[in-house]
């Protein structure tokens, strides 16, 4: 059995897809820390609800409502996502996060970012071992130095050449292979000790793409397709490793240091560039 924990932001697509794929593959996080934004507590509806029915019930109701909204949004994107993914991820798993989360060991906290005292204290008191994170931003020294804990990131680019953001799109622009890299997180931007990297191929039905607007295609790739590929590569790595080492210890995986002087750090694409990239993909 592979032991790891997961940090999720409530309603975040990346980690939602991570969790649903992991569970489908039979990998259950030992503990999930579910982060809710602090802004929720200043929300008027939340204030009234927590006054009337108590904070705990209001929390549950808020998770449920958020999940319902997300689910509707995902269903609306189904036809776009189907163009890229080999199968219908929505019908297979019926992504209802509340149903999934109710069956797992979930600790809910309020925090505005991954470097907050709330999250650090929560990890210190509840988790030992590897934590998988997604869409976390840069983790600072304080959280990275928690004893007996290591963080793993699945990055949507082949490191060290592609670091930072939107690497899927930059790789397409520079005609380089798409891929994902798994590494232990350090203080740098995607410079941690590399565990595994693998090329992936974007499956596109260009005929279908012509019927969809560029913004929607970009959104689908950025949030759904990329997350799906990332977690698929991680699961493939776990499956292969478990075959060789049934007692796989994620804290002590074979890994090697990256050459920090190689490659470039890329930043989020400008909205105009997002459209141009998709145009290039379609016209290729």
């Amino acid at each position, binding site marked *: 059995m592979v032991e790891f924990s997961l940090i999720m932001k409530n309603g975040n697509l990346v980690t939602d897809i991570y969790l649903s794929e992991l569970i489908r593959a039979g990998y259950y996080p030992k503990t999930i820390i579910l982060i809710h934004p602090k802004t929720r507590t200043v929300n008027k509806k939340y204030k009234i609800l927590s006054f009337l029915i108590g904070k705990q019930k209001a929390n549950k109701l808020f998770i449920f409502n958020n999940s319902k909204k997300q689910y509707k949004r995902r269903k609306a994107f189904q036809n776009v996502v189907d163009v890229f993914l080999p199968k219908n991820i929505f019908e297979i798993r019926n992504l209802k996060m509340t149903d999934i989360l109710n069956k797992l060991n979930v600790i809910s906290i309020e925090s505005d970012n991954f470097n907050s005292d709330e999250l650090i204290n929560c990890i210190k008191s509840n988790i030992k071992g590897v934590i998988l994170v997604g869409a976390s931003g840069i983790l600072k020294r304080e959280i990275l130095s928690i004893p007996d804990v290591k963080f793993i990131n699945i990055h949507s680019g082949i490191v060290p050449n592609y670091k930072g953001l939107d690497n899927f799109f*930059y790789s397409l*622009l*520079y005609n380089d292979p798409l891929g994902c890299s798994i590494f232990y997180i350090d203080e740098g931007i995607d410079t941690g000790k590399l565990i595994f990297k693998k090329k992936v191929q974007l499956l596109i039905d260009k005929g279908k793409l012509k019927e969809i607007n560029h913004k929607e295609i970009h959104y689908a790739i950025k949030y759904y397709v990329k997350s799906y590929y990332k977690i698929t590569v991680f699961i493939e790595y776990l499956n292969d490793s478990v075959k060789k080492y049934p007692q796989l210890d994620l804290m002590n995986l074979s890994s090697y240091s990256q050459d920090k002087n190689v490659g*470039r*750090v*890329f*930043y*989020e*694409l*400008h909205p*105009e*560039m997002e459209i*141009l990239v998709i145009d290039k993909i379609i016209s290729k």
Partner: protein
Amino acid sequence: MISDESINIESTIKKEGKITKDNILLFDKIVKHIDVYKIIFKYYDLDLSKPQSKSEISNISYISLFHILKTSGDYKFLNSAFKLNDLMLSKAIIDESTYYENIKELKETFYKI
């Protein structure tokens, strides 16, 4: 605050004039300040990470940098040029018609790379 260990961004932009294989890393570090912080100060430390002055580079330097990025023939720098164009509009360095003209030119450049 400014020491011998500082880099003057305005004179660097003027001196370099365009992006080449030799200075690509230097410009990679400069554009981080557009992409992430949306401001470029006059002086930075030798690693170009920490500002060494509180004053911003001049409007002319922003415009020069924009032209350097636009003609770089590199997608990453072109992306930064789009963001710099937004920045210049928000700082009233350029007017709206120039802003849209720049977007048009940047799009044309994209298809030429």
